[in-house]
């Protein structure tokens, strides 16, 4: 009977896949892009390693019109619009624009995190003729050609949150270094689950550049400093709340007592993982650590389910990006400079040649989470 055919096919597929898993044993934690990792020193206060000054490696706008001191119109094209994180960066940008008084900034972008759509948006704004473009890239390489086109037309290009290839933009405002974020995450988890706790990771997709780099750095740092902590597996959950919840629940059910902690790598995955732990009645027994926005995490922090989560202030990030753009247009930030003035944030340092560092990762806890609203 054909049903038997179907069933044997299914069975066969399952066996084949079980066999495929043996090959998975070598286990990278995810699909990163084989870039070198640079784990920080172990232990508390293992501050950022002294960074050797690198030569400027950004691109240059070609013959930009001189608008020093004059009003400029810039556009912000984030990965996608319609999520809280980029609402916050927009808020910061608007704040900076108001303070500066001579900057007009609009946020526009695709409704899904697709690089192809983002390229079209940027291209349209090049045609419209803006003075500057802020971006958070869905893919660092794919976005390069259109950004270079912008530079060749004399449009200034500054990135934030997710970088492009260095020569496709002039500067990149880095919210926090990948290895710093990774250290904060692993340290927070280690604090809760101890030296030989086992944990799993819920991420969006393996090809989201930032997530992939963080996980790679987390692996390097954990292997260096807490070699007995055990990584169980990493699962994908797109950017969907319910899917992340289901995946986290599956992990909890699969590993039972063995699972001591869950990392959420996106602002969607972390609250969903916290919810899964709450629903399973395992608050306090399974730690949840991740990157997340405060509003989504407040219920779990207040209930004690989540002790800490890591992020930076995206409002500050957007704010800094606009100040950097203004400085570039005014000629106050030039290749070779080592710091830039960013309004209420003070002086921000230049690292890695053409990156401007916002600061260390910020750890939210019960004591400070209520102060924020994003």
């Amino acid at each position, binding site marked *: 009977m054909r049903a038997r055919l179907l*069933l044997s096919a299914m069975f066969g597929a399952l066996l084949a896949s079980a066999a495929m898993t043996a090959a998975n044993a070598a286990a990278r934690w995810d699909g990163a892009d084989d870039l070198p990792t640079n784990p920080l020193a172990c232990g508390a206060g293992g501050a950022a390693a002294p960074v050797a000054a690198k030569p400027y490696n950004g691109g240059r706008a070609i013959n930009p019109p001189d608008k020093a001191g004059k009003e400029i119109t810039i556009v912000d094209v984030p990965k996608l619009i319609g999520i809280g994180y980029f609402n916050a960066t927009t808020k910061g940008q608007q704040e900076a624009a108001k303070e500066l008084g001579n900057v007009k900034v609009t946020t526009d972008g695709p409704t899904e995190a697709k690089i192809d759509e983002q390229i079209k948006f940027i291209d349209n704004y090049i045609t419209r003729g803006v003075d500057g473009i802020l971006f958070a890239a869905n893919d660092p390489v794919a976005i390069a050609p259109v950004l270079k086109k912008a530079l060749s037309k004399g449009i200034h290009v500054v990135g934030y949150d997710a970088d492009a290839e260095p020569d496709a933009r002039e500067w990149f405002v880095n919210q926090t270094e990948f290895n710093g974020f990774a250290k904060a995450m692993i340290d927070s988890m280690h604090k809760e689950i101890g030296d030989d706790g086992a944990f799993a990771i819920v991420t969006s997709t393996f090809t989201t550049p930032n997530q992939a780099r963080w996980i790679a750095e987390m692996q390097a740092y954990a292997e260096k400093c807490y070699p007995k902590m055990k990584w169980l597996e990493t699962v994908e959950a797109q950017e969907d709340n*319910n899917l992340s919840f289901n995946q986290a629940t599956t992990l909890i059910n*699969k590993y039972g007592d063995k699972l001591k902690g869950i990392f959420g790598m996106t602002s969607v995955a972390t609250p969903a993982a916290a919810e899964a732990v709450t629903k399973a009645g395992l608050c306090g027994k399974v730690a949840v650590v991740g990157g997340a*926005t405060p509003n989504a995490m407040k219920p779990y922090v207040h209930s004690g389910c989540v002790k800490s989560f890591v992020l930076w202030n995206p409002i500050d990030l957007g704010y800094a990006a606009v100040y950097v753009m203004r400085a570039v247009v005014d000629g106050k930030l030039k290749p070779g400079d080592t710091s830039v003035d960013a309004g209420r944030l003070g002086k921000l340092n230049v690292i890695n040649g053409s990156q401007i560092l916002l600061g260390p990762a910020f750890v939210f806890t019960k004591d400070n989470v209520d102060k924020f609203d994003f």
Partner: protein
Amino acid sequence: MTAAAITTAASARGAAFRRLIGQEALLAVAIIVLAIVVGFINPRFLATRNLSDILLGNAYIAIAAVGMSMVIISGNIDISVGALIGVLATVSGSLAVAGVPVIVAWLAALVIGVAVMAAQGAVIAYLRIPSIVVTLGMLSILKGGLISVTGGRWITDLPQNFHLADLSVFGAPMPVIIMVLATVLAALWMRHSPRGRAIYATGGNPEAARLCGVNPRRTVLMVFALHGFFAGLASLVYATQLRVIQSNTPQGLELTIITAAVVGGVSILGGVGTVVGSTLAAILIAEITSALVFINVSPYWTDALRGALILATVIADILRRQRRAAQGWKR
């Protein structure tokens, strides 16, 4: 003559139903066999907690698939349902946060769901624009509209009693109750009530249906309105499960729902299929997703395997029907 036609039609439908019991049985068997096989590899899969989590976490897909099955059986399709569920969840949540009594917030989701879908149904039935065009357009309108209005701001601070999905009746969780009730009631209605059977007639052969006294246009309108109701129910379960509502369009949801309906034996040619099949299929797909994690399939291959299994199920279904049809011919 009409009575004879209806009787023949009825017995033909009876035969069709008998054929279809095959697909439901096939799915039920697949669900059980899969559970046993995976349980053998990793016994934790069979824990009550896990099995119920699979059901709870995916009930909303099965509920939406009930409405979708009706749409497909009537010979149409709807690709806007995912966006609509996102919108309804946001509306319901926003109302609750604004202080509106939760019953009203829940009802709002149902009412708006029916209204939006009925509007589409009217355009499809009376203005005779193909359903794929109308729902494709509506998908864009809903998606863009949702972002324009909410700006993607997540809805937090939901009142405690909003969480419908947390309630339970006699120990059975609400999502499962809604799923079972929706499936059973819809199945019975479609099988035994003239209006329900009219859906099959409309999808199978609208002209013949009209000759039998069925109004295809009104049937399509009714089908879409019902679909909106089930989408509303699904959105309630979807929205009330977690403490935050994402207020965006759940990605790929319509495809999952359509896949559940299709794997459940609903034929896109219209006129064939049952909602019991689509519910079982939704459960099976959810089970496969979980199973692939339990048996340690390399995460890079999970999607491919799920796709392969869906394909195998679909092919097996078609082959099975052809065998039955061939047997029918011989008689």
